[in-house]
Structures are given as structure tokens and as C-alpha cells.
């Protein structure tokens, strides 16, 4: 089944990596400039009409974000994830809201949490769940969650930190 789908896509758009996870799930890595076209082809011609989700992974060391469009074909009950690597530096990706209006919400979330821009996506610059955020987008891996929390939130007093071996020395053999 997957083989036929791959052959069909290959006639129109290049695929870099194929990663089969099971009989029901496969990931394809495609080029940035043909990614939305590939997704549209899967939707319009190959029956993958349901968008499960759009998400991102921060590959900080490689300077890339990986976007994944997870699509479902409800007739044959198969999922395909379309992956695309984009530059982390001023990250931008073509909007797919013309395929599914709901994808605008995912794109708005990615804009806020990762700082990935989707120009022309409706409301992409509106606040999503963070109010008044003016820091590094928090899902970026170079965002120091712990330091932020330490500065931003009230710290409960009277925390203790006892190391077992030091505590036992203090109690059992303090003078040795």
C-alpha cells in the first residue's frame, strides 16, 4: 500500500527519506518548497483528507526546525506524516490554511511557541495561550525554563535539601 503511494508522489514531488513505522504509519521527509504541494496532493488525490495535527521539533544543534503534517486517510485507515526541515534562523513556512481552515490555529500556536512565521495565515500573530509574552518562544530549546520560572514566579520558602550520605555523617559519625 505504502509503496504505491510513494510511487505516485515520486512522479510529482521529490521525497528525501521514507521511514515506515508500521503497516499503518509512515513518515516522509520532503523539500520545503514542495511540502505544502505534497500535502495537498495527499489530501486531494490520495484520500488523506483529515489533518490530525501540525507540530514542530527544535533541532537546535543542526539549526533546523522540523515540521510534521500528520494526515489520515479514513477510508484505508492509514496515517502519513509529512516532514519538512526549515531553517531555524528567521523561521518561515508557507501557510496551508487554504487546504484546511483549522490549520491556522496550529500555525498560530507554532508562531507563539516556536517563533515560526506562516505569512498570510489568518490571525497568526494573535496571542494564543501566552499573554504579554516578550521572551524567547518557550518551546525553543534554548529557552531556559528553569531560570525563567525562578525569576518569574514566587518561590516557596523553607525548602530543604539534604544529601543522604552527608545527613548520615552528621547524625551517625559527626566527628570522624
Amino acid at each position, binding site marked *: 500500500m505504502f509503496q504505491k503511494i510513494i510511487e505516485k508522489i515520486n512522479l510529482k514531488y521529490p521525497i528525501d527519506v521514507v521511514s515506515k513505522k508500521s503497516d499503518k504509519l509512515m513518515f516522509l521527509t520532503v523539500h520545503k518548497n514542495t511540502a505544502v504541494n505534497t500535502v495537498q496532493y495527499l489530501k486531494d488525490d490520495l484520500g488523506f483528507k483529515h489533518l490530525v495535527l501540525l507540530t514542530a521539533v527544535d533541532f537546535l544543534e543542526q539549526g533546523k526546525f522540523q515540521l510534521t503534517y500528520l494526515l489520515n486517510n479514513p477510508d484505508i485507515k492509514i496515517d502519513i506524516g509529512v516532514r519538512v526541515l526549515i531553517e531555524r534562523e528567521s523561521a518561515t513556512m508557507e501557510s496551508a490554511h487554504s487546504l484546511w481552515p483549522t490549520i491556522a490555529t496550529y500555525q498560530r500556536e507554532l508562531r507563539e511557541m516556536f517563533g515560526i512565521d506562516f505569512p498570510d495565515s489568518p490571525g497568526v500573530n494573535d496571542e494564543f495561550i501566552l499573554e504579554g509574552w516578550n521572551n524567547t518562544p518557550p518551546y525553543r530549546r534554548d529557552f531556559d525554563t528553569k531560570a525563567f520560572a525562578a525569576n518569574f514566579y514566587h518561590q*516557596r520558602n523553607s525548602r*530543604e535539601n*539534604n*544529601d543522604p550520605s*552527608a545527613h548520615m*555523617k552528621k*547524625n*551517625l*559519625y559527626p566527628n570522624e
Partner: protein
Amino acid sequence: MGIIKDIVSPFAVWKHFFKEPVTIKDPLNRIAAPRYRGFHQNDISQCIGCGTCEAICENEAIDLVAVAQTKNGDSGLRPRVDYGRCCWCALCVDVCTTGSLKLSNAYTWVDTDGDNFRFTPGIDLKPWDSLKDGYTKAKGLELYPLERMPMQHLHAHQRDNSFIEIMKGYSKEEAMAEADRCVSCGICVAACPAHMGIPEYIKAIREDNLEKGLQIMYQTNPLVEICGRICTHKCETVCSVGHRGEPLSIRWLKRYIADQVPATDYYRVLNQDKVEKNSRKVAIVGAGPAGLSAAYYLSKLGYQITIFEKLAQAGGMMRYGIPEYRLPYDQLDKDINYILSLGVEINYNTTIGTNVTMDELHANFDIVYVATGLHEGRSTRIPGTEHANVYQAIELLRKITENKPIEVAEKIVVIGGGNVAMDITRSLARLQKQKYGKVQTIATSLETEDIMPADREEVIEAREEGAIINPGWGPREIKILNNKIQGLKVVQCISVFDENKRFNPKFDESVENFFEADMIVESIGQGMNLSFLTEKYAEQLEKDSRGRILVDTLTYQSSLPWLFFGGDIIEGPDVIHSVANGHKAAKGIDNYLNSIQK
């Protein structure tokens, strides 16, 4: 049509009136799923306060707070959970070494004071403490292997006629895998008499920085090749990983580090702080573990050390008591030679009282440290023990080390159930195998197998090598006919200790047994011989009601300020206690001399 539908359809809904509702009447009291991750429970009787829960918690929701220590190998700390930080990921439950920590499936808790949402499960009692359901670690999920990495060793048929070392040591891969099981809790440190930095040197193995590992070990123990082989490893008895699996092979990991650093590198690796020598002189009587340990730490403090050793070589019981198959002489010498290389002088074949007197030591040295050990074998004093073919284990072991000829009879009975008894049993079994091609040695002890003081693996290995271990008998008489030993008559021993846990064996005289033998070896314990002190000094020493010399428990100083005692004379008997008290005596001697020379 539209109008009719509008009129009829409300009635169509009525058919649902008789169906089970999908909503819940009282959503506030709904019971969660059986494996729901709700509020914490901690079984305080099981928890040892190892702190792995605190270490794994990414949210820093867990603090270890002091409570009363309940048992041996318990840090006296318990986890306190802050629900302002907890995200109920349950990693604390997954990593818990004892399995005491759980999440109940309770999930509702209303309070007006935010600070109340921080509590110590099991100590601060909660309504959900008794709930059975909730999250426990999934079956088969282990964050670290529960089985220890086995060590390559010689099998019985490969070792039963020679004194070649049995255990082969870990390879790098094996040591790394074993070190990886350590959860770095540090519970073991208190159990070690020398309080070695165990988690730190195991970490050095994981980092493959064995020179650092050696430095850490020498901070508290200068006999690491030796202890890496024959230590009584009290640490392993409290290892937190041992609560649900096999404890870390701490002893073998110590050996791995020592084995991997060549003797020629020791000086470079260990002698980093340049020591300024001073003019203070300390005489050490006895080159056993306590004397060597004191010599090492005193020489690191700049002292001039002279050791007086009665025998021809250093090591004491480690050389003359422990057989070569457990502790090869070259490894023993590796540790000893390093200590001697620091400028420690040693006079062999020198007996105090004969070659040099206590008066001379007192006159020529600032301090005299006595660690002469327990080298006098005790006798059962049963009829027949005066026969020439009745030996003391400790004397035979010494002769085997010295390569002196000893009589090896065809049939031998060893009386005793401790590690020395196993040492002589297994040594004689080897010699019998060499001489006769078969083993006929029986070891018997008062204690039944479950309470035999010998290490379990010693008993198992002795049997593998063909010796018979038949415990639970009290020796009554050595039968002699025409001046030739026939064997040992024994009766059943019912109990060894009385209600007050004092040694007071009871026998059933009606149950007899007879072990045939041409030679009997007694191994029921050793005593000390301090006659070299002479009456002049012995009388001045303060002693307890049982005649034991009293020393300060931190400094090991006796009532004569210039005279310190240590080693098996004071506590143990084993190597690691001697190493520890030799180290403490070194610090005690230094503190004392500093205080009087201010």
C-alpha cells in the same frame, strides 16, 4: 411536513427516558481509574530515604526532610512533595529503589492554605494512605538492571588443586555496566567502616577516569587492591539497589579501579600534594592493615615512620592468614610497596621484647602505635587436643604462606565455622588434592548453616572444591588409639546463644556423630598476645571489666598518652575496620602532638 416534524420530534426524545444516563450524578466523588496518578503514598517502613525520587524529579517538587532514622541503611530522610511543583509524571515511583513510593488514585484535595499542599507522604497522614488502587511501577519496567554483572572466575575443577586466584576481575565493559546500575544515593558510605567515597569512585568508573577513582579511594583507604578482593563489604548489605535486586558489586568495582592503574603510575597519580617532612617520629608495631594504614596517613602528614614487624614480610593477617587464591601476593605487595615507597622504614623479623624493648621505643619515638592483631589460635581444650596432629588453623595458614612443609593427612577434620575455618579447609583440600588426588576434609561448627559466621560464598565454594561442611555439632573428644588420632566425636548443638545473645551453647548429648580423621585443625577464633608490653606498661593501661585495653573511640589513644592501639586488637576483626581505625589513629596522633607542642 415541516410543521408535523416540529410537533412530533420532542416526543421522539422521550424514548431515551428509559435509558441509562451517560452523565454522572455526583461528578465530585467520582472514583478515578485504578492506575490513575493521584496523590503520593509512601510506605515508611520500607522507605530508606535514598533520595533517588528527589534526584530524578525534573520539577524539583521533592525535598528530602529529616525524620527519625528507623533502621540500619536508612538515611533518616523522607521525601516531601510540593504539589505546587509536582506534575504527577510518576518518575519518582518508577525510580524508587525499595518500591515504597506509590501514587494513589485519589485526586481531589481542597484547602484554603496553599502551603498545605506540601506534605511528607507516610509521615503526614492523609485520607488516601489506605487506598489500594493507584499508580505503581509497571511490571517489567526497570530503570536499572536488578541483576549484577557476573565476574569471570575459575570453576571448581580448574582451581581445586592450586592456589591460583579464583576471581578474574571485571573487564572495562563489565565494570561500566555494573557502575551504571549505581543510583548514587550514598547510603553505603555510612556502612563502610572507612566511610569510603563509594558513589564518587563508581562515578569515576562511569566517566572512565580511573586515576580520579584511585585518588578518591586513597583518601580513606590505602589498601585498595586488597579490599577490592577480600573486604567484608558491609556497604553491599545496605545498597539501596539491593532492596529489590542484587546490590552493586562495590567490592569488585573497587578492585577494577585498582587493577587498571599500574603500580608505576601510583606515585604520579596519588602524590599530588607535596608533603613537607617534619621531625616527629612514630613507631608502629605490626605491619598489618592498621599499621600500614596509620603509616600511610602519617607519612602523608610528614611524619617519620618506622614499622617493627615480627615476621619476614609485611601484611599481617592479609598475607599470613588469607589464602593466595583469594588474595594473590603480587596484589598485596602492590598496595604495601606503594606505602613503603613513601619513605616508611620497616624492620622485619623484629620482635618487641627480644630485638628491641618497649622502653627503647618510648625513648626514641614521640608516639608508639601498637597494632599487633590476633595471631594466637584458641583451643577447644577438649580431650585429645594435646596430640601432635592437632593444629591451629592460623599456624598452618602461616606455614602455607611461608612455603614451609606441613603435614597433610588423608583425612582431616576442621573445627570452626568462620572465614578462617573456610580458609584452612579450602587450603587443606587443595593440598590433599595435590598429594592424594582426592579431598577428604570435613569442616564442622557449633553454628548451624543458617547462622554460620563464614561468608555464604565461602561455604558454597568449599563444597564445590570437594570439602564437606557439616555444621551444627559440638566437639566432645578427639579419639586416640595407640597414639594415633581416630577422629572427632561430636554431639548435636541445639543453640549457640542464649536469650541475652551471649555465647552459651546447648547440646543434645543423645545425638552423637563421629568424623573419622588422622589430623584435626582447630579454628574457633584467635586471641592477642600483648606480653611484649611488659608489666611495667601493661599495669599502667586502663582496661575495661573484661580486661580489654581502653582507648579513645575517635583517636585510639590509650591512657598512656604516647601509646596508641589499633587493628583487630580493638575492633573487627577484618581488614576494613583496621584500615579505618589506623586512619583515625593517624589523625588522633597528629592532633595530640599538635596540641602538646603548641
